[in-house]
């Protein structure tokens, strides 16, 4: 009975993966570009986006990455939308996910405000600069944004391959800045019923890295969990659980500032953004339910492959080579 249930869900996940990797909707999307708005019913495009993003939401949770980092390269690569609107929607997708997750993380004290607030101020200020720079680059030449986006996505894929996060990093002595800011805390590890105290080291280099993370997040509308977690965990020595929770909470602040820039510029089209947000959110809920029976490691590797492909495709598109179709 259990085996049958698992098989059923695995089949479902595989189907979802096929949807993403073979992107049949993208084929439809491509076919529709020429005939846009002629014979299709009103709900055609929103439905395609919703289903696509629903699948992305499942995959994102299983692979342990944020929605934005998958959404922007895949939707910009396979859908006919201009990169300006994809980035606007991508930020809203990442923001909605972070806002929905935020309350639970704060109530359980997993997201640390003492850690998040200084980091958020740096990252959100820089994400405004990144958003403005990204929009300026796009105005100059959208292909330039595609190439830079592609290179960033390839970089993220490599980062995902190489970074080996540490559950409980050893911090022997807190540095002066971390001490002055009082960046420390304690939490209960539910699995081991152990109280774990933590503090930071290398606080200044960590904060400086958030300058670059903020700029990249704003420039490409990616969200930034892929970078937040390694910096908090590997550079600053924050336990993985606190890093993941604080990173998710951070996104709700960093993405807000960049999202406002895109929104005020007119880059958020509700017809694109809303089904994307809802699809990814509902997909994430299903993804969480599937976590216990799926093989996250396998899915994570597949996502890395997809990111590599999406990154190379964006570069290919930006450079006008046409090698990857």
């Amino acid at each position, binding site marked *: 009975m259990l085996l049958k249930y698992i098989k059923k869900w695995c089949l479902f996940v595989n189907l979802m993966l096929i949807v993403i990797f073979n992107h049949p909707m993208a084929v439809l999307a491509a076919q529709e570009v020429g005939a846009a708005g002629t014979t299709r019913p009103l709900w055609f495009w929103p439905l395609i986006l919703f289903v696509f993003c629903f699948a992305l939401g499942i995959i994102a949770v299983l692979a342990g990455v944020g929605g934005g980092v998958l959404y922007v390269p895949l939707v910009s690569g396979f859908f006919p*939308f201009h990169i300006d609107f994809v980035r606007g929607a991508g930020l809203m997708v990442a923001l*909605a996910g972070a806002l929905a997750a935020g309350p639970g993380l704060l109530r359980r004290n997993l997201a640390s405000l003492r850690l998040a607030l200084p980091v958020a101020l740096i990252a959100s200020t820089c994400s*405004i600069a990144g958003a403005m720079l990204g929009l300026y680059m796009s105005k100059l030449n959208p292909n330039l944004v595609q190439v830079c986006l592609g290179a960033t996505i390839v970089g993220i894929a490599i980062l995902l391959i190489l970074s080996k996060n540490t559950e409980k990093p050893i911090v022997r002595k807190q540095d002066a800045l971390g001490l002055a800011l009082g960046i420390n805390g304690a939490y209960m590890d539910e699995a081991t019923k152990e*109280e774990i105290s933590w503090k930071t080291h290398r606080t200044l280099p960590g904060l400086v890295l958030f300058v670059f993370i903020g700029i990249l997040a704003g420039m490409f509308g990616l969200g930034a969990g892929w970078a937040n977690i390694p910096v908090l965990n590997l550079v600053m020595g924050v336990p993985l659980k606190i890093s993941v929770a604080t990173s998710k909470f951070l996104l709700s602040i960093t993405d807000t500032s960049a999202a406002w820039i895109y929104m005020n510029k007119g880059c958020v089209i509700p017809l694109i953004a809303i089904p994307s947000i809802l699809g990814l959110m509902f997909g994430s809920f299903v993804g969480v339910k599937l976590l216990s029976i799926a093989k996250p490691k396998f899915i994570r590797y597949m996502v890395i492959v997809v990111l590599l492909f999406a990154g190379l495709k964006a570069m290919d598109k930006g450079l006008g080579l046409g090698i990857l179709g």
Partner: protein
Amino acid sequence: MNEQTQKSMKPMPEQIAYANLLFIGAWVGILMMIITYFLYLGGIVSPHVDLALITQNWNKGVDDYLQITNSPHGWAWLNLINKGDFLNFVGIVLLAVMTIICYLLLIAGYKKRKDWFYFFIALMEVVVLAVAASGILGAGGH
């Protein structure tokens, strides 16, 4: 467990208030997006920009798109709130404004505790987000 550890394991009251307010705001925003989107696509509230015009132009850059569809930027969408497409911005904007509102709770909390450094950080964050939201920086004309 020592007193210090026990203290740092407990979230401050403003953090819980932040979480509660964020929970309500985020889900109201999402619910509003669902409702307004239904009103928009269901044709119950007529849009400012025809759907076909959107699909024909969403492959163009934002400046060209706004010009062709005669769409506003910045906060000018408020003038078109009675139109189906711009009505959708109510939920979207609510999501984007929640962090600013919630931060006000933190400012009050840090002030009460006389934690002036974090009070200043939270205040600066509100300023940064308010500037971004104001449209001063991002709403260049077309």
